[in-house]
């Protein structure tokens, strides 16, 4: 462990704001990149379900 306390860890020796904002932005981008295809797939399946219901109606 290179820090003595948790507040020390958060402060990152006066560089806390830089380090944590960089990690925060990176985490947001990674999360978005996972969520985007997952949501797109769900949207596509819903579309297909609607289409199938429409086509199966007499």
């Amino acid at each position, binding site marked *: *462990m*290179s*820090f003595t306390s948790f507040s020390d*860890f958060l402060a*990152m*020796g*006066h*560089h*806390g704001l*830089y*380090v944590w*904002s*960089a*990690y925060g*932005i*990176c985490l947001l*981008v*990674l999360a*978005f*990149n*996972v969520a985007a*295809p*997952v949501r*797109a*797939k*769900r949207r*596509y*399946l819903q579309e*297909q*379900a609607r289409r*199938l219901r429409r086509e199966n109606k007499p």
Partner: protein
Amino acid sequence: MKSSAISWTWFHKLGSPKWFYSISGRMLPWLAIAAILLIGIGVVWGLAFAPQDYQQGNSFRIIYIHVPAAMLAQSCYVMLAVAGVVGLVWKMKIADVALQCAAPIGAWMTAVALVTGAIWGKPTWGSWWVWDARLTSMLILLFLYFGLIALSHAISNRESAAKACAVLAIVGVINIPIIKYSVEWWNTLHQGATFTLTEKPAMPAEMWLPLLLTVLGFYCFFGAVLLLRMRLEVLKREARASWVKEEVLNSLGREMAR
């Protein structure tokens, strides 16, 4: 020759969307697990346990996301160019799927590398941005990605769009060696590469090991997200094939059951 005929079958199989869909479905969970573990361990190790840099203090910890993002941004572009060649030469449909699906991920990774680099630059160089060879060539990489995405949306005919994007990807790959050697060819504020194939890293092992983990983790992450995107694109493009109709019905059944 018979032996060469056999050894190339895997290559032609790759071109079959159905085969791709089933093999990628089996690979995806493993890639996802590997990505979570590698990035998780690497980031915790790098943030909390690695010793601080004797010059830069704790701001150097941004390296554990900056370097993986930058490496991935460049590798992704090389992959686009390879996919472009495969698509043009062997007319493989899956190559264009890969190209279209990887471009947005590459653009995001370039953006992460630029933004985390700027945040790192402020405490280290005293400036968010300098028009330095490394930074400028990375910015050009971002514009190349934007160009590819815009081009594929601008051409409505799928086959013409695939050709145009393949050509742009191949021409743009000239930027990759420029990025790589920019720190050696021009005077620059940017530090040299941490990892090289021929030499040992200049930093101690407890500093570069977590970096190695996050780099590998980012590659696994890229693989997983790329497969997610490509699988959906294959379903859309092959919508008329009977195996796709079956697959969509199966997925719908699973959605309903939930």
